[in-house]
């Protein structure tokens, strides 16, 4: 049994300490957003946020995560109350199959928390660890820019952005 803090809640997890976080999220906590893509840290589909930074959950054994705050895409918002980054991806229709998208969104979210006004160059550099096979890159970039605007305006009191 190990205690993990996921999306603001403490979970007692019955998994071996060497289990990668990805399988705990999917198998034990029954969350969907983090995806298995390669298990090797090469594609980014499994990305979640740990203490504010983007992390490949497929190569992060849970023994590293004691007392750390884990956030998954589910922790940002819901289908009823989507977070700015989620509204931005919906507004830009930034998906085809969408399998890589939650990972992209989590790294973008971590970037925007650190740097609310990234340049296009910075977004591209930040997303370099992530692969998309459908070719929705242009839309992903637009969505991250839109999310940045929405979050900046939300900070200024405006809810920002529409669907």
């Amino acid at each position, binding site marked *: 049994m190990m205690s993990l803090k996921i999306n603001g809640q403490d979970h007692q997890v019955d998994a071996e300490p*060497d289990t990668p976080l990805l399988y705990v999220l999917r198998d034990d906590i029954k969350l969907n957003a983090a995806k298995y893509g390669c298990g*090797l840290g*090469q594609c980014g589909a499994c990305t979640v946020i740990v203490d504010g930074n983007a992390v*490949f959950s497929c190569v992060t054994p849970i*023994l*590293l995560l004691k007392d750390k705050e884990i956030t998954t895409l589910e922790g940002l918002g819901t289908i009823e109350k989507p977070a700015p980054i989620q509204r931005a991806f919906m507004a830009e229709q930034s998906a085809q199959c969408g399998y890589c998208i939650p990972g992209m969104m989590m790294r973008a979210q971590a970037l925007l928390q650190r740097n609310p006004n990234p340049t296009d*160059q910075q977004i591209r*550099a930040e997303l*370099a660890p992530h692969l998309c096979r459908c070719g929705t890159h242009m839309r992903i970039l637009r969505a991250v820019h839109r999310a940045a605007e929405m979050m900046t305006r939300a900070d200024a009191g405006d809810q920002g952005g529409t669907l």
Partner: protein
Amino acid sequence: MTLSARIGLIIAAALIVLGAAAGALAWRPAIAAIEPPNPRSFDPELVRRGRQLVALGNCTDCHTVRGGQEFAGGLPVVTPFGTVFSTNITPDPETGIGRWSEQAFQRAMKSGVDRAGQHLYPTFPYDHFTHVTDADDRALYAYLMTRRPVRAPAPANHLTFPYDQRPLIAGWKLLFLQRDEVTPDPAKSTVWNRGAYLVQGLAHCGACHTPRNALGAERTAASFAGGQAENWVAYALNAASPAPVPWTEDALFDYLRNGWQKDHGVARGPMAQVVNNLSLVDDDDVRAIAAYTADIFGPPAAGRIQGAEAVRAEAAKPRSGPPQTSASTSAPKASGPDSTEGAAIYVAACASCHETGRALPYVGVDLHLSTGINAPDPRNVANTILYGLAARNGERSPIMPGFAASMTDAQVTALLNYLRATFSKQPPWSNIAQTVADARQAQAAFLQTAAEPPNIAIHTSPRGQP
């Protein structure tokens, strides 16, 4: 302020006096500006030769910043004296070297003075470039002047007093700039002599692999005894080499040619950039560098040869697949408070790739063979654990995920202690926690500015296990 910095300051003050005294030396005349030459006026053969030389000189890596244009400068180079930004060496007439005559270019290479007569900081390695022949300078010039001009003024340097005083550099040169040519050794082969010329000159290997004194000059008495670059240890290339398996000429050639070698693993950090540049260079020159460097290493002592055999045997042991539980194929030998934690991290986070039995370079080297783990300083291993090997766009290249965001400094420290105790026979490292903290900071900066991910591009796909 550290002791060395304080000593540096005192010496610097003395140098200003010295520099001022050497007034004639400190002052250099401007060389007349020219109309930028027509690129077509250069002999294509000369340009082609220049391109290989530019690759040998690693010009691109310092003179290109992430997101910037090639050769347009702007890369911040962090030194103990402050940050120096690389300059624009495209033929742009206003912000680059478009108005430099060949004579001006040659003077910069030979003596570190720009066209206007201003002394250049020795982050530009003219202490090596001074050895480059006139013919090679001509080819370098031809190549650079036929690049696309880019308008990009260099950012102002951030240097602390007194290092922001350029006349000081004249004093530095008086002490450290040896302008004599590399004299051929008739007792050695042509290949060796070619290697000596390249290694000491344009390739400026010593700029990283030789330790520096308090004034940032290479300590000639300790040539190739190991230095540093971008917070990476540039390992000793002499008898002090920490490599478990001694380097040979052939191994060096393979490594410099392909970016990896079976007994030593893959190049990473600034050395990966060097190897990527060398991929544009003909075999002959790579062979020459290997031959000369092998001679610097010298024949290994008997003890090292035996050690290498033992390490090779250890590495060759068949792996029974990834470890199943907490018992690794390499039993933990470390003791101490964090050895159990280190072992657990190794098994869960490292062994799943490093012990799969997949062939190099697409999986980590067997860590018994790791130079980093056997080196006196844990920096390179810390850098690698934290930042891994980033993927290169569209290139076959090894990828290792970094653990900077998922491991605390304490966890990295525990892992480093475990690796050292398990995979080397060297004494434990000291001051690891500080090294890890420094590595975090320095590598984050380096990775943000380097134009390309510091990782090697590979041309072949050795067999893997599906």
